[in-house]
């Protein structure tokens, strides 16, 4: 059986004149599995250069992202305990549930480095499972967009109250975060821009312009913040931000932006009203002020990871180079075969 000679084989006997030759050639090669192809082989040269290339690409990326991350100035201030008066420290839940006590609280933070505007104000909650399935599902996107007629059972247990539909319904909206922050520097109020904190796409297409809060937070159990019934949902940016449920159990959400530079050493007075109840389940509340870079917030991991991978790639390429130089496996060496070639 002569397989080697391609010339001995006649090409498909019936070559129809109407079809182009190239098509026939293609079909022939296709059916005989002999289409032109590229067959990569891992030769030492390729291995070494691949690792080298990986190193060369990864290390710069690593350094760039690391420096970007380093340039971000971040002030983190946990206030959930500090904002409870000493007398209530033993019984935080009662304190937060008691509507008659003023929840105002004042904190001062020092700016360690110069912070360029815009400075993002985040509130961070920990041990708050916004990604719990019961929670994530408890919303009605239809209702948010089209109004109370579309209230459905997905919103349980917060779909009807006193016989009327709740707009916006569901646990997510019900548990709206309602701490508020005001900032002042040297007794002068810092302007906080609270517009454009939600995604524009959400404002325009997910939350109805004609849908107004209705019958909201009217139940026995108040979960969180209330909404101004005269403002359509599409303009309730706090709600919109809150409704983008966080991926992890500890998360930040944008509160607003300070559009002034802060200088190193500045003392910022934070006037906050500590309304939101995270005490009943041991959640933490933190206020975060942060500048941003192209990489986002402060995150050294990305840069470190790239630098690690890059340098280990270089090391690998060196190791393989050494191995190749010292004890090369001769390619095409058939002595490695389990039989004689």
């Amino acid at each position: 059986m002569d397989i080697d000679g391609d010339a001995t084989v006649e090409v498909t006997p019936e070559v129809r004149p109407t079809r182009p030759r190239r098509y026939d050639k293609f079909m022939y090669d296709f059916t005989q599995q002999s289409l032109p192809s590229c067959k990569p082989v891992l030769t030492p040269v390729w291995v070494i250069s691949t690792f080298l290339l990986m190193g060369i690409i990864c290390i710069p990326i690593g350094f760039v992202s690391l420096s970007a991350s380093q340039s971000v100035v971040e002030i983190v201030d946990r206030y959930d305990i500090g904002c409870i008066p000493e007398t209530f420290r033993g019984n935080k839940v009662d304190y937060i549930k008691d509507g008659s006590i003023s929840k105002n609280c004042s904190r001062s933070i020092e700016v360690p480095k110069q912070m360029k505007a815009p400075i993002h104000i985040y509130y961070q909650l920990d041990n708050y499972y916004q990604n719990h399935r019961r929670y994530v599902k408890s919303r009605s996107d239809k209702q948010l967009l089209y109004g109370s007629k579309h209230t459905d059972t997905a919103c349980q247990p917060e779909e009807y109250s006193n016989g009327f539909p709740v707009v916006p319904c569901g646990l997510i909206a019900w548990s709206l975060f309602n701490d508020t922050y005001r900032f002042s520097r040297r007794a002068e109020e810092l302007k906080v821009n609270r517009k454009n904190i939600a995604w524009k796409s959400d404002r325009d297409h997910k939350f109805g312009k004609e849908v107004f809060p209705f019958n909201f937070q009217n139940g026995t159990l108040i979960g969180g913040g209330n909404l101004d019934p005269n403002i359509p949902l599409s303009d309730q940016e706090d709600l919109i931000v809150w409704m983008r449920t966080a991926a992890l159990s500890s998360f930040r959400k944008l509160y607003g932006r300070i559009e002034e530079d802060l200088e190193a050493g500045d003392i910022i007075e934070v006037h906050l009203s500590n309304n939101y109840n995270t005490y009943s389940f041991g959640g933490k509340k933190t206020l975060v002020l942060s500048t941003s870079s192209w990489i986002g917030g402060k995150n050294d991991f990305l840069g470190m990871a790239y630098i690690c991978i890059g340098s280990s790639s270089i090391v690998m390429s060196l190791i393989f180079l050494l191995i190749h130089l010292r004890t090369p496996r001769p390619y095409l060496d058939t002595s490695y075969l389990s039989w004689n070639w």
Partner: protein
Amino acid sequence: MELQPNSTTFEISGASLRVGDKLNKSLRVRHKSMQLEENTSLESNHRLIYVNDPRKTNDKYEFSGNEIRTSKYTFINFLPKNLFIQFHRVAYLYFLAIAALNQLPPLAVFGRTVSLFPLLFVLCVTAIKDGYEDWRRHRSDRNENNRESLVLHAGNFERKEWKKMRAGEVVKIYANETLPCDMVLLGTSDINGIAYIQTMNLDGESNLKTRYARQETTSMLLEGEKIQTGLIRCEQPNRNIYEFTANMEYNEQRFPLNQSNIILRGCQLKNTEWAVGVVVYAGQETKAMMNSAMSPSKRSRLESYMNRETLWLSTFLLTMCLVVALGMGLWLQRNKEQLDELPYYRNRYFEKGISIGRLYKYYGIPMETFFSFLSSIIVFQIMIPISLYITMELVRLGQSYFMIGDKYMYDSSSGSRFQCRSLNINEDLGQIRYVFSDKTGTLTENKMEFRRASLYGKNYCRSFPQDDGLRRVDSSASKPISLSQRRWKLKSEVPVDSELLTLLHEDIVGDERIAAHEFFLTLAACNTVIPILSRTSSSDCLSDQLLEVEAIDYQGESPDEQALVTAASAYGYTLFERTSGHIAIDVNGERLRLDVLGLHEFDSVRKRMSVVIRFPNGSVKVLVKGADSSMLCILRMRNEKDEHVNQATKGHLTEYSSVGLRTLVIASRDLTDAELEKWQIMYEDASTSLTDRSSKLRQTAALIECDLHLLGATGVEDKLQEGVPETIESLRQAGMKVWVLTGDKQETAISIGLSCKLLTPDMQQIIINGTSEVECRKLLLDAKLKYEAEFNDGNHWKVELRKTAESEFLGLPNSDNSPNLPMWNSEEEGPGSTSFALIIDGNSLVYILEKDLESKLYDLATSCKVVLCCRVAPLQKAGIVDLVKSRTDDMTLAIGDGANDVSMIQMADVGIGICGQEGRQAVMASDFAMGQFRFLKRLLLVHGHWNYQRIGYLVLYNFYRNAVFVLMLFWYVLTTAFSTTSALTDWSSVLYSVIYTSVPTVMVGILDKDLSHKTLLRNPKLYGAGHRQESYNMYLFWITMLDTLWQSLVLFYVPLLIYKDTTIDIWSIGSLWTIAVVILVNMHLAMDIQRWLLLTHFAVWGSIVITYACVVALDTIPRLPNYWTIFHLAQSPTYWITILLIIVLALLPRFIFKVVQQMFWPSDIQIAREAEILRKQPNSLWSKTIQGSG
């Protein structure tokens, strides 16, 4: 593509059906044959057909009409029935159960429609495929049912649609028409009631078969009498197309009907102007339709291993679900106090005034734990790769397409392509260890040529090709002879021995001359060959008269017989007419009409055939031909002359078979009137009996087949097929053991073995041909001793070898790429220099296979290099295959061409049919069919290797692909208070295995190849990769799973660490994960692709693009919570470098592992691949490394 020939038209479906059940039966025959025979032929259980009285025949409505339905469904029952059939697959039931679970409110993880999508998708695809096939069947049924034939109605033949025909009606068929139902022949245009039919549609044989109408009915028809009512009593409809038992009462006569009196639906009438018959079986009860069962499906070895690993995956799945459920339970327990008010859990309504409201979606901690378990099953469902089954089917389809299209497996001489009849076992072709081959028609061409004749103790072996010059001299010497020879033109030339020819032209005087006369008479008469005459005029240029030349084509079921008749004709004894009652032979120009009184057909018990003929002068003779083993014991030994002739003939027989000829012994005997009478009575009785006819006939035959006068013997050559020795050599080098199982006698088998290089002269032959159990036992023991003596130092080593092989099969970790372990290839060249060949005959096998000797035989046979079984019956062939199959895990392959190989083909793991001379039963029972034996080399070494390697990788990759996805989900669930939240959108989770990642898998499964066919064919040892299970084993599975674990951790934790303490929302991170996992698995695949075609590029990169497109599409629907996510993400560079980091970090260990392995422990395939590619292109700078991403 002709992958499923059963689906096109009736003819084809009729053909595919075939002997299925008969074969099944024959496999079971060992245990059940007796009962079965009794059942089928019970006298009380017959059906009555009143000829030409359909009303009376059908008055109980017990017989089916002639309408056929090969379609499975009707318009109304399509949906329920199709669904019912589809849900026979366990996988689909799993799907269904998951989807059903998801409909329960507390478990609704996915949206309702979404969760049903995968199931609906699969069901729809399959239903559409089934529906289309069934529609085509409907169409062909309709065509079939609306055909028309002539039916006798009130004395006239009128056209009637097939579907309206009923049993009992009399039907007239013209030449070249197809028969509408199974009919008993009443008469034909031939005076003698002969009809020729072609049974191509039924059993694929293209030669004509003769069917006879009984003389009693023929005469009546021809004389134009009105057809009277007769009564046919026949057996109940059954599948056996080779048997029919009935009798007929007509004109107060009662006579038998058998196989030769019935013509079956689907056959065509040929060479006969018309035929009239009475319908006995119609529609679904016809034999053709009864045979429409498919042969049992086989499951590939790899698939059963795969199922074992699927069990592991199920274990992982359950573990994961348990972890989630327990975690959920503990979490609930810990937060029990707050559950009512917890903002993200709140399980209570709070109405005004009532302090504690009702609970909602909360059923207590134990139930919640349980529900959590169930819902995690829903979320993690694709851990069990259901899509794998569909993918595998598609891939096998593609592989079959390439196997069918392979030009090197196209047999141009018969125009037959390779056929894939079974789509389940492509990859088994890459792991074959034992090849069981038939000899006749498989190793040899089965084109018989008459070579030698031993006549009355004298050997005539100098054969010359029919040389015209010689003939002409001959003819000019004696003119009358030449004329007679010229009159018949044979289709094939036969070399003749001039000495014998001269003898035949002498007067008929003397023992030798008489013996020669009878010898050739027997050759011409004692057979079932049909001469087909076609008149052609040709002018002879030498003598200027116009000669009438009749070309004869001999049609017969046995090529041996054809060869013998042709030879007889070449020597001047031309058979030119055969009817049921007589034959006519042209003996050197003299026409001789012989009455055939009876014919005992060849059967495998007697191994001979005899015909009783009355000469014109009134004398009666029995002419017998048969296998020497069965003939030599019934020969006459009266005087010294006999003795001498017998001895000489025996010598010749041995000589013939030693050169590889097939031998037959020819003998005759005069019958006295008394003997004749006695025989006639018995024959009559036996042939009309409905029960046990064959054994009665056998007894009758024994009456006259004794005390025979030996005339001589014939040697017929069976040519080796092209490329057989090379193929066998390659298969052996590839580590396969080739066993030949043949019905031929020992000497022939050995000689063929030698000529096809199966046996070599330096081999030591162990021959086992005992005739009793004791003898066999002794022979086996001797052989064993002999063997052990030779191998006494190697034996111990061998045992160890076997152990290693076993541990491999148990899936224990073994270093599969260790090149220095010579464990498999040295098995052949064992320490002892002599290799053994075991030759065993059918008789011994009778004793051995039934008894405890089996295991001894197995031990002996597996330690011999070659095993040759001769004189084996079909069931014994299956028995031998079973002997090996049941004792090892090694894959067996059986290859054969005849009906006698069917049982073996069905028994073996892989059955291959050769489309040869002996009909198509073997092909119909086979998994693959091809034109030539030599294609086996390419099929196994090239396609087998490719298929195995492709499917092996495919399975592992699919496990990985789904597991990495599920594990990623699992890690996330752990961070969501065990609440089975999926960050991915419902649609993305569902589309992941259906759309995002499916196409590249299929493409790689079909198109990837590690080595070129040239390399594979040049180095058969590369086939060992399949034997060592290099592409799929436990070790690889666990390595893959470890890799999966790592990759899933990277996949989960990299985004987690990067996006922790940011505003990232659940949909964004889900979107990131979706894209990352799709790119990751595609890059992983890309890293392993060995051959990059344009198509592969499209598939791999295309599916990443498609995934993006899908994600974008999903994110532009405002109603979904993930609206616009991807656009926000894509704006940030972090997103992109996160993905890059995931890919690089996840694939790094795998890449390093691969590099190290290839550098230090290269596999055979790896080296061959390097040699193949780098040798061709020394500066292979163009070739890309696998890891392109950097």
